[in-house]
């Protein structure tokens, strides 16, 4: 079991940065998700930890040992690849046994440990098949077993569910989560799917264009995004972001709406904003519709999602926001509704720096 520490780790291709200098400490047993859109540098970061990619600068420390320039085989890591990377000419059993055979383990040991890990993943009936004959879900189970069998100090997973069908994905998600709890091994998990990251990770590292945007627990990145990118990227749909003007203790929003920030925020806004422009951010579930609400908007569409209804509202022209309401409520397109925002769920951003305005005496 191990800690992973990245110190100013970066990756350049010529002048182009794939990963800008990055600091990260992952403590023993933690499940950390690297989350971001494709091309954000998350996979490169993972491959640098694995040793499959050399770093252009910085240090990687694994369990107190500087492994920056060690080969993958010299680091105690196991990796699960997006497209499984199973050996096609070997049976499932031989695939799982491969890391043990490579280390020269005794035959009885290999047999015993493959059996153990196959039981853990419930894949005993598949052991004689070759990867080509297995479904993608089963192939990924074999790949997981191959990673687990050596009992490495940390697991690196590169979008392990990316190549699976949607219905398989959820099953495997809970399986990986269960394995992590059973093994309690440090896990770094790369994904572009924020739902996956939210559901599985202890902490999420949100990346974009080679830069870490925010590191935090799922609740932190969801409720207190550090900038506009994170606010939009996390959640589906993302946070509602409405542009307004801050003056005389009131935020003027499109559609002649005037919004009074909750207690504590006026001072924070006065101190934190670079100009009078401000962006108000709130999650769809922060919208409370009632007849005396301070804000008003027109109903643009009403989408029933089964357990809830998602309203698309229009504040003024072209400023649509999402509101999550009870599935029993009824609205007609075109009508005007009035609503308030749950005070603890409102966030403010500076339009110039795109960063969140910090508030001190206010808990999220």
């Amino acid at each position, binding site marked *: 079991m191990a800690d992973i520490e990245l110190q100013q780790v970066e990756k350049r291709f010529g002048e182009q940065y794939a990963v800008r200098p990055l600091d990260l400490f992952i403590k023993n047993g933690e499940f950390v998700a690297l989350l971001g859109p494709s091309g954000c540098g998350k996979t490169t970061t993972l491959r640098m930890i694995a*040793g*499959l990619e050399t770093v252009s600068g910085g240090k990687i420390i694994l369990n107190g040992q500087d492994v920056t320039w060690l080969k*993958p085989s010299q680091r105690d890591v196991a990796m699960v690849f997006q497209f499984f*990377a*199973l*050996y096609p000419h070997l049976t499932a059993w031989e695939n799982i046994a491969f*890391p043990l055979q*490579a280390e020269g383990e005794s035959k009885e040991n290999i047999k015993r440990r493959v059996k153990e890990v196959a039981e853990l993943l419930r894949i005993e009936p598949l052991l004689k098949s070759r990867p080509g004959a297995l479904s993608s879900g089963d192939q990924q189970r074999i790949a997981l077993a191959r990673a687990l069998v*050596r009992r490495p100090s940390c697991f690196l997973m590169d979008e392990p569910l990316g190549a699976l069908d949607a219905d398989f994905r959820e099953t495997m998600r809970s399986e990986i989560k269960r394995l992590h709890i059973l093994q309690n091994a440090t896990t770094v998990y790369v994904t572009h799917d924020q739902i996956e990251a939210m559901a599985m990770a202890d902490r999420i590292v949100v990346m974009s264009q080679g830069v870490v945007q925010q590191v935090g627990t799922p609740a932190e990145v969801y409720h207190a995004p550090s900038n506009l990118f994170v606010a939009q990227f996390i959640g589906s749909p993302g946070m509602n972001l409405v542009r307004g003007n801050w003056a005389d203790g009131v935020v003027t929003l499109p559609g002649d709406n005037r919004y009074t920030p909750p207690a504590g925020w006026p001072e924070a806004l006065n101190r934190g904003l670079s100009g009078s422009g401000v962006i108000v951010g709130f999650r769809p579930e922060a919208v409370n519709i009632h007849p005396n609400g301070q804000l008003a908007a027109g109903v643009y569409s009403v989408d029933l999602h089964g357990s809830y209804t998602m309203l698309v509202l229009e504040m003024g022209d072209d400023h649509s926001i999402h509101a999550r309401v009870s599935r029993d409520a009824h609205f007609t397109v075109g009508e005007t509704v009035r609503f308030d925002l749950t005070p603890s769920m409102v966030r403010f951003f500076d339009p110039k720096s795109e960063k969140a305005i910090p508030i001190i005496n206010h808990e999220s």
Partner: protein
Amino acid sequence: MQLTRTQTARAHSRRSLTDVQIQVLFIAPTIILLVLWNIFPLFYSLYLSFTEFSVIKPDVPPAWIGLQNYNKLLNDPRIWQYFTLTGRYVVITVALQAIVGFGLALFLRERFKGSGLITTLILIPIMMSPVVIGLFWKLIYNPAFGIFNYLIGYSVPNSGPDWLGEASRALWAIIIVDVWMWSPFVMLLCLSGLKAIPDYLYEAAAIDRASPWFQFWRITLPQVAPLLLIAILFRTIEAFKTFDLVMGLTGGGPGDATELIAVYLYRAAFTRFTTGESSALAYIILVIVIAVSNLYVRSLNRIRGENH
């Protein structure tokens, strides 16, 4: 209107040929050539192998003598000696070609500056005529002025061995030329096999802590095996038929030290003109080649089955 009518007419005449007819039309020339040059000679020579006949005596018709030709050949100790010699030659030359060819492929697998040029240069021997190769290797092997002995350390003329003139070395001399000429062919097939191995297998193996040696035996070799086996199959059949190199280099000599079975067959058919007997010998060779290649095809199918 005029135009439309012509078009319709054309379409009609085209339609008057059915798909099957068109297929037959395309295949017919090949079939006719195949029958004339392959099928007919195949069966005619099978018939001749049971007769006493010589092509230089066309006025004497083939006389049916049953299995006598086969009987005579299979009881001739010299034939067995030449078959053994050919077998030894085939095993040694194909094994060396497989090793050298695979080694070259491993070396040229990584792209480096000039690797394309080197690949092309290595392939040159395949493109040359075996007779030409025989002629200039004769010069290379020449004990008085050939460069071969000089390169292996005999700097004084005539001090080194006479590769083509000594019975113990002549077969090896032919093997060296054959390996030089055909290893590139094995290399070419292996190279395409190596380049088809996806990188991620090696990444997975690196993560699985496999040593380069372990990676070679457990990933590289099994992945290339099907193509390597095809190369070996081709080379085995070809080596069994080796004729032109021997004729160019030693003519079967000294004595009968390099009298491979194909050379002997040539003599029987076109020097002694014992057409009936040589047809029988050709059939014996054919059966052996088919048997050997069947073994290969079987193991090839087994490997393929494993890969899927």
